[in-house]
């Protein structure tokens, strides 16, 4: 989706988006006018808003949390792939 639609759906202000992009908290696909932003960026933006809002996390804390959460998801994906390869040992 385009930047405008992303702003509407994520509820972010342009200025906030600029800051988050600078912090590299959001990484939309570069150079793509039609589909630079996707659902994962919206979900991640909501997560960051929750962290900043109700969870009262400051900016350096958000860096740490995002880094750890992304590693956790990397782990989960690796586990899922391992599980799959165990389930179908013959398939390659």
């Amino acid at each position, binding site marked *: 989706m385009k930047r405008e639609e992303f702003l509407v759906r994520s509820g972010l202000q342009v200025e906030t988006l600029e800051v988050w992009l600078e912090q590299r908290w959001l*990484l*939309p*696909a*570069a*150079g*793509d*006018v*039609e*589909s*630079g932003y*996707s*659902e*994962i960026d*919206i*979900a*991640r933006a*909501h*997560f960051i808003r*929750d962290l900043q809002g*109700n*969870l*009262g996390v400051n900016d350096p804390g958000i860096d740490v*949390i*995002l*880094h750890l*959460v*992304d*590693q*956790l*998801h*990397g*782990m*989960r*994906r*690796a586990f*899922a*792939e*391992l599980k799959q*390869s165990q389930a179908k040992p013959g398939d390659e």
Partner: protein
Amino acid sequence: MANPYDVLGVSPSASDGDIRNAYRRLVKKLHPDLNPGDKAAEDKFKEVAGAYDLLGDADKRRRFDAGEIDETGTERPQQRYYRDYASGPGHAYADDGAFADYMDGDDVFAELLRRSQQARANRRGQDLRYRLAITFVESIAGANKRLTLPDGGTLDVTIPPGLIDGQVLRLRGKGAPGSGTGSAGDALIEVEVLPDPRFERDGDDISIELPISLTEAVRGGRVRAPTPTGEVTLTVPNGANTGTRLRLKGKGAPRRDGGHGDEYVKLKIVLPRVPDPDLEAFVERWEAGKSFNPREDR
């Protein structure tokens, strides 16, 4: 839904500050994105959020305490969390750092991890979609266009002759770069053909309307007519009429078999803008003109 005070674990006499603190404590524990593998966390989180919607708002809390509203009616719309996407393949936030050390071993586990990481590392780049507007003439004759990309780069696009509105051109390898040994994605360019007031396209054929003078209609003559590849001279037969269709062979759109469609020229007689006294005098004494009724065979 349970009693909101029980959900937040506070007594009905708790202060606003106590309620807010209890809520924050629970959110930290239950936020679905901080519990990626716990399916129940989302339901608990929603329950807590619903309870806080009610008790965190002084007016709603007063009305709830007074029995004016119940604990329902604060249902939140379905939200997709980051965790719903983040464990999926191929996104910019993926991070394998947490198990990088496990991949160094020579056991089966390390081998499996390495193989799946390699598959991800050598992924083909994304296809990128663009739009390009071209003129009608360019769509028939073909053209070379340069597309300016949002990041400031450019992309040279060869428009093949005969392209139709909405057609998508694929430029292999001009999309996002792949990672590792993965090939680059493709650029997909949807071409919009801007309408031209002179031409209309019907399949491989093109039609135009060409104004001619009364003199040219009656006596015939040679007139210039536009085609997508430039003007040509056309012979108007004498006795031509409004609606007479002439064919310019091979002046239409290119066909797949290498041939071309035709251009059809529909003539339209146009009288001088300012009425001409000689013409008026002639028509006045033109008997055959008076008895001719162009509507009678309708």
